[in-house]
């Protein structure tokens, strides 16, 4: 250790992201090259498609929000050792519950409508998260399996609702509810042609708050203790069951929020293709970020950009959408591979 400690620390912190990104770019370039696309040109297109103009930034931010929330919903349980793949289902069920409020009283004023819709969405998400939490805590049922199954169930429930009782007849066969009234939308923010809504800064604040809570507070230590050794946690007066249920319910709320924003502000209806796999993308982002609430924020933005660029490329460069999946996989492999190689090298 001849270098100054600060430099060493900085190099330590930046090495995995920088090296991971480099490896990713190299792999992606090779992939495009061997598929007959000029990598340089494609990279420029991707950047343009993600952040090139007001429209693409708007799209990117729109995708960043659900990814961010779903990543938080994955990372929080992971802090106590729970592997939840359930953000997708919680997103759907949260949207379903929130929509119930809208359909019940579509004429309500914004002052009533917004809080009611939000509260029901959060409750719905919490319920969908708490089910695997309770099963885990009470019966030791594997939460990963339960969350996956509940994803299918939530999607089916939404399909049932919008093909059945909640279908708006004036849609002429298109499966969706009636359009959400203006009172049931999160207030918009716009700046230089870039449009978003207040849920986005709120989600960022949530991420920061979770960061502080988990890194600095007693609760963070409690979660880490439960992950590391639940038996020893008992000696500290920390019980597995209530934490497990609370954490899963809170995670569900986060994803549920993503769901209702998606239905109310983005699609303006509840419809079957509510999410383009945001729950799963969020899962990837959380693991890419090593469950750090701070690192999740930029990574969600990058992933949002990648997805919105994929839409653009598909439209304008006729690049099949499957390429995005390949890119996601390459990103995952690069960052995790570099991280694993580093910890192995460190141990020896």
């Amino acid at each position, binding site marked *: 250790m001849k270098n100054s400690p600060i430099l060493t620390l900085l190099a330590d912190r930046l090495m995995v992201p920088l090296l991971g990104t480099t490896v990713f770019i190299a792999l992606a370039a090779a992939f495009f090259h061997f598929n007959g696309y000029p990598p340089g040109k494609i990279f420029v297109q991707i950047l343009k498609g993600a952040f090139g103009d007001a429209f693409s930034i708007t799209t990117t931010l729109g995708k960043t929000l659900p990814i961010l929330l779903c990543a938080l919903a994955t990372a929080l349980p992971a802090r106590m050792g729970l592997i939840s793949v359930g953000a997708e289902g919680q997103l759907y069920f949260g949207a379903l519950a929130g929509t119930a409020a809208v359909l019940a009283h579509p004429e309500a004023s914004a002052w009533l409508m917004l809080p009611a819709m939000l509260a029901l969405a959060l409750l719905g998400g919490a319920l969908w998260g708490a089910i695997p939490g309770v099963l885990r805590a009470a019966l030791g049922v594997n939460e990963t399996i339960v969350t996956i199954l509940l994803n299918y169930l939530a999607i089916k429930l939404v399909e049932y609702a919008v093909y059945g009782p909640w279908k708006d007849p004036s849609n002429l066969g298109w499966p969706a509810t009636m359009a959400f009234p203006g009172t049931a939308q999160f207030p918009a923010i716009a700046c230089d042609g870039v449009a978003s809504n207040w849920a986005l800064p709120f989600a960022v604040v949530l991420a920061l708050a979770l960061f502080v809570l988990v890194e*600095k*507070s*007693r*609760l963070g*230590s*409690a979660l*880490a*203790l439960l992950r*590391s*050794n639940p*038996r*020893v*946690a*008992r*000696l*500290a*007066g*920390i019980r597995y069951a209530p934490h497990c249920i609370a954490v899963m319910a809170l995670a569900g709320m986060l994803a549920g929020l993503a769901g209702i924003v998606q239905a109310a502000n983005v699609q303006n209806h509840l419809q079957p293709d509510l999410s383009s796999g945001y729950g799963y993308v969020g899962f990837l982002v959380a693991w890419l970020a090593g469950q750090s609430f701070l690192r999740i924020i930029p990574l969600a933005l990058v992933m949002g950009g990648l997805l919105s660029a994929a839409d653009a490329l598909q439209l304008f460069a006729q690049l099949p959408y499957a390429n995005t999946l390949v890119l996601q996989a390459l990103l995952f492999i690069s960052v995790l591979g570099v991280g694993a190689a580093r910890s192995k090298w460190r141990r*020896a």
Partner: protein
Amino acid sequence: MQLELVSVTKRFGQTLANDAVSLFIGAGEVLALLGENGAGKSTLMKCLYGYYRMDSGQILLDGRAVSIASPRDAMRLGIGMVFQQFSLIPALTVRENLLLAYPQAPAWHGRANSAAILRLLGEFAPDIAADTPVAELSVGQKQQVELVKVLNQQARLVILDEPTSVLAPEEAQRLHGIIRQLAATGRSVVIITHKLEDVRACAQRVAVMRGGRLAAEVKETGVDERRLVELMVGTADVAPAVAVLPQSGITRLELRKLSCRGEALNLRGIDLQIAAGEILGVAGVSGNGQDLLADAVSGLAALDEGEVLLDGELLQGPVTRHPDDPRLGYIPEYPLKNAVAAEMSNSLNLALRGLARDPLFPDRQRRWSRAEDLMEAYDVRPRDPGLASGRLSGGNLQKLVIARELSQPRRAVVACYPTMGLDLQAARAVYEALFRQAEEGAAILWISEDLDDLLSYAHRIAVLYHGRVAGVLPAAQADRTHLGQLMAGGRLS
């Protein structure tokens, strides 16, 4: 096989765990590796076994330099190691466990190739039946199976890391016999230990480490034991002062008809009373319910019936349990598994007992400096509050748990093998901390397998046999034969 370590150096961050250590191990030789806690014994052997990669130095096998980058390499060269934490699968039988670890295990196994796998078991541990599930074996027997597993891989050098610290005296003697037998068949053995009995019983040569270096090497034959102790810990005076039993006689900790279900056996109808200031020793062959008793009293295991009272107040019962009660100190066996969160810092592990009562944002500075003080007072090395506790040497981890549990005044203390893995001086410090708690009025429930220590320091001794209390004797009236009878299931005559 002759083996030579030449100038082995291994560093962990700032800690120099091994500092240019050179060591020779002859064919058919039993070498005892002694040294205080944190001296670097386990690290040196893990370098040899390829678990750690040394920073510099050489390993010569029969005079030829070899490179060992992983345990697999070590195994290929005939070097095997038995750790304290066994890697057997409890639900499988001895035969199946051996089969799993057998080199080039056949995909299909029947009587014919099973014979090869069981040959060494028959040779070294003939009293273990191949079809017993491992869960039903005693600790000593598990260790023997683990040893046979290593021998099955054609090991010519076997490293044992503190093998006797978990064994009852009879089991330790059995192991000594096996070690002598290994040496007689031309295999070399390195035994890391803190116990002089081990040295006496089977070592031909002794190497003593201190502070990462080789401090001394002596031929065992004819070495003075006081001298050995001195070489190990720097002083020969290691007997703790005895705790005097106060006369008051008020009952502080009471176990009433305690019954509780365990994995291997159940506790049934345990009635015990411990007065303020009294040290009640619990003797018994390991596996007779000791760990369950400790968990039940400290509130980690669910009680089926009965209750634990502290000063007449309900502490643990079938309905409510209070494992985090600050009046109770608990030193469980296997601290790495049962007492600390291995990935978390020493500072947090030391603050752990009060965690749920801390403010939302705890004062980390204070926690840190308190950890520094405790680590200083209980001689936990390296004195780094930020280090993950799992990185401590076995003995230093034990000291960390002792520091947490005994640094505050307690009303009752449950201590399971509290000196396990400690060097003699550290063991003395632990006994003194325990006796100080007693002198300040705590009731001590002390589980141990060391009859000599129990007889010297406990006030009364209870014997646990098959989950029941077979008898309770005042230590003054007890002796080894008497206790031995009770431990074997006999009755008081």
